[in-house]
Each structure stands twice: as structure tokens, then as C-alpha cells.
């Protein structure tokens, strides 16, 4: 199971790099999706460990996979609102550059 968890950590870190090092809003949002996917993979892996640990006695229930379903639903909602914000920002300021949208910066 360890390789899957390490892979999920790697995907999460790549996504974090995209969020921090890129200035295109669309690519920042896509990197956010990558981070969420990394977490989903880790949850599925832990769910698999839990399932094989409980296989002796009672029927194992895939709780972790239900968490992943919740994360997917939240990700879908987040993308809808995020892309609507991108459209709104592009309408008012004609840019998708995060460094140009710093009016609230102190």
C-alpha cells in the first residue's frame, strides 16, 4: 500500500507547486484539482487497508470511498464557483493573471 500513498503525496506536492508557482488562474485551479486528487488517492488507499484489516470478522465497509465521493462532490461545486469567478474577473479586468488581481492586498 505504501507506493500508492507515496504517489498520492507526490501528486499533492506537484499540485501545490502549480498553485504556488503559476500565475495563470486557470492553471492554478487545475493544480488545485490535482491536489484534491492526491488526497482522494490516499483516502482510497487507507480504505483498502481498513477493508483488508477487517476482512476476518465483520463485513468491511468502504468508509474511505464514501469520503472520496464527498470530496468529488465538493470539488465539482468548487470548480463551478471558481470558474465563474475566473469569468467574472476576466470580464472586469481582462486578465487571468493572479498578480494583477491584488487590489485587496495590504
Amino acid at each position, binding site marked *: 500500500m505504501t507506493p500508492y500513498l507515496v504517489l498520492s503525496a507526490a501528486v499533492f506536492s506537484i499540485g501545490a507547486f502549480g498553485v504556488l508557482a503559476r500565475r495563470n488562474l486557470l492553471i492554478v485551479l487545475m493544480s488545485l484539482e490535482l491536489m484534491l486528487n492526491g488526497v482522494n488517492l490516499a483516502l482510497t488507499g487507507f480504505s483498502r487497508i481498513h477493508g483488508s484489516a477487517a476482512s476476518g470478522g465483520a463485513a468491511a465497509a468502504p468508509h474511505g470511498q464514501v469520503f472520496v465521493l464527498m470530496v468529488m462532490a465538493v470539488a465539482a461545486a468548487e470548480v463551478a464557483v471558481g470558474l465563474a469567478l475566473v469569468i*467574472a474577473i476576466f470580464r472586469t479586468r481582462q486578465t487571468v*493573471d493572479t498578480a494583477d488581481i491584488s487590489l485587496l492586498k495590504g
Partner: protein
Amino acid sequence: MSPIFLVASVITLVSALMCVTRRNPVYSAVWLLVCFLSFALHYLALSAPFLATVHVVVYTGAILVLFLFVIMLLNLREEELGDEYPLSRQLGVAGLCTALFGTLAWPLMSDPALRPFATVPEGYGSVESVGDVLFRQYGLAFELVSLLIVVAMFGAMILAKKTLWNSAEPNRG
């Protein structure tokens, strides 16, 4: 490690790296598609067939199409893509993320409790077993997620409405 895992994880890592490093968001979206499909393979290997199906439907079917739709809608020209941070900052962030990966991966690799890849009972991760847990134990969370999606839908519609932004001055600071 099975050969399927090795091939799929190489595809995952390469496509994820390509996704975050492309300048044009269209290429990023296509690499993200490849990455998502390789994730479905991982879910299948982790005995989560229902999750793999939902992942393909939601991520590649809904989220990625939404991304491509917005990219086409904005129709960004080369000069509208904006600048990138200087290479020094990008390298610094890369180092930071490598450190993040180290801190995340080290405890995972050194914990022997996470090592076993034992077999799971028949039908684990099938529609029946996931649905059973979802509706028996997480019914409230399920309903709240539906509420969240309705709120997000209205929020997205209102935010993207054209008339809302007509009165706002295009203010370039």
C-alpha cells in the same frame, strides 16, 4: 509493485508535471485529462470499481469539460496569458514542494502498518457496499452535499451573469 501500478504511476506523475508546467491552459487541460484517466486505473487496482467509474464521469466528464469550456469561452490570446514568476521564485517553490513531499512521504514509508496489500472481501467497493455505507451512515452528509451543490450552482450562475458586471468600471490598477 505490479507492472500496472508502475506504468500507471509513471503516466500520473509525468502528466501531472506536464499539466502544471505548460504555458497554455489548453495543453494543461489535456494533460490533466491523461492524469485523471490514470487515476481511474489506480482506483481499479485499489478495489474501488465504483469510485473509478464516478471519477471518470465527474472529473473527465464534468470538471474537465467545464475547464475546456471556460478556456474556449475566454479565448485567451498569447499576450493575455500573463507573465510568469521569475525562475528563481519557481525554483524556490519547487524546492519547497520537494520538502513538502519529503515530510509527507517519509512517515508513510517508515510506517510498517501501512505496508500490507492484503486481499479484501468479495464485493468491496462495489456499488452495493458503497451505497450501503453512504445511505445508512452518511445520510446527513449526503443531503448536505446536495445543498452545497445547489448553492454552488446558484452562486456560479450569479457570478457569471453578464449584467452584474456591466456597471462596474474596468479598473486597471
